[in-house]
């Protein structure tokens, strides 16, 4: 099968989440993780999902990326309704539109930096993977470490390689789940700058889960999740009363 390319008018939202709930069966009972989430993310937008640990941020991210399925409600990714798709069709969507940056990098230990970065292109059957990967890593200042293995790289270098891997196939949407969680603050800041650079330069939609207040503030919009519910929205461009509430939640979250 092949996912028909919906005409990518810039007006079409990158993600549209409508009344989404997620519950899992746990010890015979149903555990409600997310309830009635509604959210729309425009193309090229940068959105931070904040909330304390265990509130359901990662779950929401996974649902939006089609890694998991909703219990109720609908999610549209670039016009494709995820509930109607099979596991493999969702995978194909990811291949077309999505890049990931993980908290724990997830570089393959047996592969060199450049080989790790080449992977998405190889899976997409694109030619010239190596040249593109080398060029990208060079631009990220990793020209010396091309053939280093992940174990030979520092945390910041590893996350830069992971970032290169996430963007090399030019995704429309970049998901990042606490990308700086395993890094010290200054190294984290470098990564953040890079993320926003791609957001700016290539108009990549950026969906970011974070504890980091400063990082969240850099996003055009912040979304707070509390006990599985979207309690508020906050846009950095238009001041809101809930600014403090968000800051409070973010702070609490970073301690928990």
């Amino acid at each position, binding site marked *: 099968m092949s996912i028909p390319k919906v005409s990518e008018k810039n007006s079409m939202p990158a993600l549209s989440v409508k009344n989404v709930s997620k519950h899992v069966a746990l010890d015979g009972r149903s555990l409600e993780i997310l309830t009635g989430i509604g959210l729309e993310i425009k193309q090229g937008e940068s959105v931070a999902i904040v909330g304390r640990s265990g509130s359901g941020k*990662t*779950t929401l*991210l*996974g649902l939006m*990326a089609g*890694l*998991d399925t909703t219990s109720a409600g609908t999610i549209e990714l670039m016009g494709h309704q995820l509930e109607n798709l099979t*596991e*493999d069709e969702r*995978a*194909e*969507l*990811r*291949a*077309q539109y*999505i890049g*990931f940056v*993980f*908290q*724990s990098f*997830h570089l*393959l*230990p*047996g*592969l*060199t930096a450049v*080989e790790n970065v080449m*992977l*998405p292109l*190889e*899976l*997409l*059957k*694109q*030619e010239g*993977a190596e040249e593109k990967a080398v060029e990208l890593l060079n631009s990220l200042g990793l020209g010396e470490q091309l053939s280093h293995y992940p*174990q030979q790289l520092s945390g910041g270098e590893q996350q830069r390689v992971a970032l290169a891997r996430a963007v090399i196939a030019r995704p429309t949407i970049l998901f990042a*789940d606490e990308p700086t969680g*395993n890094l010290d603050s200054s190294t984290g800041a470098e990564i953040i700058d890079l993320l926003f650079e791609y957001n700016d330069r290539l108009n990549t939609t950026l969906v970011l889960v974070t504890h980091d207040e400063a990082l969240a503030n850099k996003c055009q919009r912040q979304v707070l999740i509390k006990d599985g519910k979207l309690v508020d929205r906050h846009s950095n461009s238009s001041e809101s009363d809930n600014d403090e509430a968000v800051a409070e939640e973010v702070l609490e979250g970073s301690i928990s």
Partner: protein
Amino acid sequence: MSLLKQMRGSVLWRQRHQFSLRILFSAIVVASLALVSITSISAILSKSLVGASTTFLAGDRQLTSPRKIPENWLDKASSLGLEVAQSAEFSTMVSRKSQDGSATFQLVTVKAVGDRYPLKGELLKSDSVDDVAVSQLSGPEQGGLWMQARLHGLLGFQQADKITIGVKEFSYEGILNQEPDVGFQFSSFSPRLMIHMGDLAKTEVVQPGSRVKWQAYFVGSPSALLEYEAWVSPKLDSSQKWLGLREGRPAISDALDKAERYLLLGGSLAVLLAALAIAISSRQFAQEQTNYVAITKALGMRGDSLLQRYLKELVVLALLGVGIGWLFAAAAINAWLFLMRDALPSLESVSSVMPPFRSLSLSMVTALVFLVAFCLPQLAMLRRVAPMRVLRGAQQLPLARRGATLLTAGLGSAGLLYWYGGSWLTVGILMLGLLLIALVVVALHRLVLEVVQTIWVPKMEAGSALKLTLQRVTRQRSESLTQLTVFTVAIFLFAVLLLTRTGLIDEWKSQLPDNAPNHFLINISPNELESIESLLTELSIDSSALYPMARGRLTHINGMDVKVAVTKDVGALNRELNLSWAAQLPEDNVVLEGAWWPDAGRDAAGGVSIESELAGKLNVALGDNLLFNLGGREIAARVTSIRSVEWDSMRPNFYMLFPEGALDSFPATYITSFFLAKSDKDKLNAIAEQFPTVSVLELDDLVMKIKSIVAQVTSVIELLLVFVFISTLLVLMALVAASRKRRVQEALLFRTMGAKAALLHRIQFYEFGVLGLMSSVVALAAAEVAVYVLKSQLFGGAFLLNWQAWALLPVSTALLLALFGYLQTRRIPTVPPMNVLRSNLDAG
């Protein structure tokens, strides 16, 4: 209760679902199972083989002499605690006198036996032709006589008739069905009968100068036998012979020797493979302990006491595994005995067995040494785990240095092999050999990977499953090399056993096919040729060709009298040799030097082909001139070829072969051989009646016995192969398990990048297929070389490229491994991709 509590609190018990721990445990069980069963079965087998061999001698040892054996020799044996029995065998005419007064005569071989004959083996007798043969504890009573069934026909014997030997009349007491010690002897052509030793003198047949074969049989403890042998040997002259297990029974002692060596080799390999599985899984297991150790340390446990705790529990685990393996082994051995009992009568005496205690301690020490030797370096790494790791999230514990592991593992294995009973030299050779093989294997695979990566992969279609597979195999080079090397070594060991087994069993089978000749007709005169051939056809007996045979003595070598030329005592010089001629080289003969007739050119006319062993003893070489005396007339011949001969093949074979026609002017008789089933034995009577001067040589019992031994050995070898196969599988499983975590991680990542489940399945399948194919090809090549060396050193035999193995092994290994890897990892693509976000890579 406290034991139960202790068990629940144990680190290992809590991780009982951990795959690596299960493999570790299974490997210990299998190592112990293999070790215990192989040592026990080879003990049973060699006992039973020795038993079978001694039955051919009718005692543990035998002494033969053309003169009466001196009383004081026998007394000496008794005084050493040996049991002694005697017999005397001679040819004579017997006569039957029927009640109406008519008489018939027949040339027979008479054996007079003492009260205690036979000391070993089965003497079978039945009351009449239709009765079942019953095993007897001793021969006939004085005045009584047993005789072979075919004598009935030859003599026209009736139940009430009297038989006279010499001047003594005997009463008929039954049919002689089987004597234990009638071997493959051309002297016993005539039908046989048996009387009591006490009647020997009364027949007055045996006079000074008569040809009599005196035999004494001895049974007793090995040390007493040795002492007696040492005492009696110097007293023997060249006409007297001391017979042990190996003397005169090459077919059996050969099988015995080879089986012993094979079992030893196979047993060690099975254990070695299990050790390999222990090594891999224990390393893996230790690595998986990282987080647990980090947490425990963070909670305040000291590294040393933690290490002690692990060691203690591993020892308990090892002992438990060995115990279970021992129980399995006991069950396996008894099942084997049960299954074999009908097929192998010589096992009857062994009813049920407990594996010997020594094998238990053997496998305990083995398991402990391997476990500690392979586990320790990796476990020691655990002491270095920083408690900080708990806070910092997962990174794998570095693997222990290869050097350290190799050193402890090498020392452990070497020590064990030495303890098993090797010498330091053989241990050194074995270890060096394995190291060398591993190095060669690594180098070879490195080369192949390099070639695949630089030449093949770039040409492939981007994104195809095979390309993705080869990319990961060639890129993750050190992991691939480790896997390939271990696969290769495991398959190599298995292939070595498989190839040598096929060789051994085929060799035995070809020597003794189902229809191996078990009867000979000797003394056929030229004018009887046609009629005997037509009689055989009429009886639907499928006989071998008729070989001509002239009897003659070798008198001179290069003009020199053999008595001067050959100082050694060579039996072949003391009697007349069977000389024959043939246009074609007999089936299982091989020309070692020189050329067979058509190729020998002008030399052929005056040539002779000599058997290689005799040539060696006589110191005769190609081109030497031999002079033979055939009943007063002489014939000279030049040695044009030297042949090897399969004496065990039960086909007529000859020391000397002349070109066709060379002996035409000499009187000759013919010889042939054929297979005759027990139920067809009365056909012999027809032959005997029609051709009274033709002698029949019945070897069916001997052939049966040899076959039974071969069957035993074969069944043990098959069992051994099963163990080795299980061990090999364990190694493969351990290795697959070791890479499982990495595979899950990779698959999850591929999934977030948009790879479909089918692609991931295919990558797994191809990867194991590629690894299997590469490693089995290299393993098989190495095995062929090793088998060649082994064969020429241990088993004897020529090198033969095993096409069947080449056609089957690589493909089947690749498929097996692919399937195996696929099954092991089949759920990976269905692991919820969400796990990648939760860093939870163990699920599935």
